[in-house]
């Protein structure tokens, strides 16, 4: 029968699936693209950079867990803030968070093209390279995944779980072979320069987006089984496991290649480290191919995750009338938030073409830091305003955790901006555009209301 429903409803996600949603977004993006950057600034202390970033992120993760367990709505950070704050604040939160995801997407797309070129060159040297080609590959991959998300509801939890497990296995293979090639001398001196603490804080701010993605778990809450228990668990497990994997991989990369060499390699750092020690594997040829393949595969799946994340925030804002209403509608043809996906992809494509990659990463980090401040603040405000609200997961050590998280996030934001006015200008510019959009929507809303009365 033509009119009977023919699209499959979204699958239910168990604890493993929910954990993998978070790990899938966190692993792949940062680890391949940002390790080199951290090593360049902080030297071997890059390992400390990731460890400390992990601690800061876990603090905010605890706040996310409390909010997600008490507010049964999909949509993540934006939705929680919308519950607690006035219109302008929540709008700003959604505006920054969606943009942060979009530019993170641009960053991953560019990371993809570097690693993709590397991978193809292992087998066929004829693939054209150069800045223009890199951008072209990045645009293609963004377009492809936007299309995929536009025409079908996202891949079921099961598929994402398999993809993430493959990524983890590839990284463990890398770490397993690399561990034997680690040379202690590569960690000396451990701190790069005299002002090592500044270098570490700066590198932390720049690579903060590495642990971005666990909040995706909070955006899919309604699809998770027994969410009251599984959401907080999934957030913790995915964060702790990801931090552990990062530390092992960074340790191996620095120990085999040396921090300086790693910094020079940039986005392809992990791949180059692999080239130095991976044995030859039957069928694949050079063993490093496996790692480069892992990098390509991982950046692609992380890209997919942020396409979903950014369009979910845009969709939620559309439903709350904080963005034009069509963005909050699902397409009748495909059953997907088509308009929200198209808008997210358009901003990603624009960022790939018009913004330099480092700046792109910095603005993204800055916005994540600021929105995490707001999320922690929401926890405090909700505790004050709704003391009797049920909190199925109630954090220990309140209010120390959210206050500490706010302070640490602000410190990182400060060091990120300290000698980089361009990032601040870019960030403020985007916020100013948001202000205009908000004012225009308010004005139009008032007009419509007048027309109706």
């Amino acid at each position, binding site marked *: 029968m033509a009119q009977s*429903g023919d699209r499959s409803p979204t699958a239910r996600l168990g604890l493993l699936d929910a954990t993998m949603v978070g790990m899938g977004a966190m692993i792949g993006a940062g680890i391949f693209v940002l390790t080199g950057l951290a090593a360049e600034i902080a030297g071997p202390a890059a390992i400390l950079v990731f460890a400390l970033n992990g601690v800061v992120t876990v603090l905010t993760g605890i706040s996310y867990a409390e909010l997600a367990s008490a507010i049964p709505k999909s949509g993540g950070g934006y939705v929680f803030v919308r519950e607690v704050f006035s219109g302008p604040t929540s709008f700003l939160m959604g505006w920054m968070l969606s943009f942060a995801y979009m530019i993170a997407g641009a960053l991953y797309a560019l990371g993809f093209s570097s690693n993709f070129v590397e991978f193809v060159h292992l087998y066929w040297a004829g693939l054209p390279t150069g800045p223009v080609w890199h951008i072209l590959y990045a645009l293609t991959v963004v377009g492809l995944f936007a299309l995929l998300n536009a025409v079908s509801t996202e891949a079921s939890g099961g598929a994402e779980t398999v993809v993430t497990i493959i990524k983890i296995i590839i990284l463990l293979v890398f770490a397993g072979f690399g561990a034997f090639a680690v040379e202690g001398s590569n960690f000396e001196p451990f701190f790069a320069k005299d002002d090592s603490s500044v270098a570490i804080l700066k590198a932390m701010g720049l690579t903060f987006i590495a642990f971005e993605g666990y909040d995706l778990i909070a955006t899919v809450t309604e699809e998770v089984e027994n969410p009251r228990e599984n959401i907080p668990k999934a957030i913790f497990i995915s964060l702790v496991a990801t931090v552990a994997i990062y530390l092992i991989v960074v340790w191996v990369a620095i120990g085999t290649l040396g921090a300086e060499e790693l910094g020079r390699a940039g986005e392809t750092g992990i791949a180059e480290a692999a080239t130095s020690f991976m044995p030859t594997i039957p069928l694949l040829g050079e063993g490093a191919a496996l790692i480069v393949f892992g990098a390509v595969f991982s950046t692609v799946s992380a890209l997919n995750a942020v396409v979903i994340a950014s369009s979910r925030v845009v969709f939620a804002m559309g439903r709350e009338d904080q963005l034009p209403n069509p963005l909050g509608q699902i397409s*009748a043809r495909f*059953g997907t938030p088509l308009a929200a996906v198209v808008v997210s992809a358009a901003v990603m494509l624009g960022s790939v073409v018009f913004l330099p990659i480092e700046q792109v990463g910095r603005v993204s980090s800055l916005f994540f830091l600021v929105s995490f401040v707001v999320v922690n603040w929401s926890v405090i405000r909700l505790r004050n305003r709704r003391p009797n609200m049920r909190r199925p997961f109630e954090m220990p050590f309140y209010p120390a955790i959210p206050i500490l998280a706010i302070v640490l996030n602000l410190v990182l934001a400060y060091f990120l901006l300290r000698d980089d006015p361009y990032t601040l200008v870019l960030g403020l510019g985007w916020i100013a555009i948001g202000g205009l959009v908000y004012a225009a929507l308010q004005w139009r809303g008032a007009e419509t209301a007048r027309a109706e009365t």
Partner: protein
Amino acid sequence: MSVSGKDLRIIIAGGGEVGFRTAEFLDERGHDVVVIERDPDRCQEIADEYVATIIEGDATLPDIFRQAGPERADVLAAMSDHPLTNLAVCMIGQRMNPDLHTVMRTDAETGDAHAELVDAVIYPRRASALLAVNAILSGDVRSLEHAMGVLDIAEVRIGEDAPVVGKVLDEISLPEGSLVVSDVEGARVARADTVMKAGQRYIVAAEPDVIEEVMRLLRG
């Protein structure tokens, strides 16, 4: 008040059987629900279902009621067993937000006595009695509610800006587990070339998992 085309924010005072089921059905349709319930054990049970934000306490106390956010809510449904408690809650709600649409649960003895003070009065126990009559006198015709099990059969008015407006059923991709049953105003069985018209009513059947998505397609 029109309830088509927008996600509503609804406060339900009283999380007993009736209040909780109401919250569950509203959540399935994509609305935001806040439940105020006094009994801690009952709060725990509702929290396990993850359909609403829960405020634990007595809804007739302004300090508790305020935590449900009445200033931003669209509808207040007072659903406890006690009509006078429900009336008090509706009065508090209207005082805190004059635009709040109030629904009061009552019983047969109290009847329509308070009807002019609230926007709607409902008698769940009378409805249950009618269902019992249906079951006792089961003949060839049975009430829809009784027959349908978990399946939700609803009459839906198509929102003005809904994604499906102006499309024929054949070009709309509804989720598996849903079906448009009847044509405009229930006059004809729907077929592939049935056009979805804004503002018109259609009978739709859907399984609980997909109701929210179906409502979003049809209402906007």
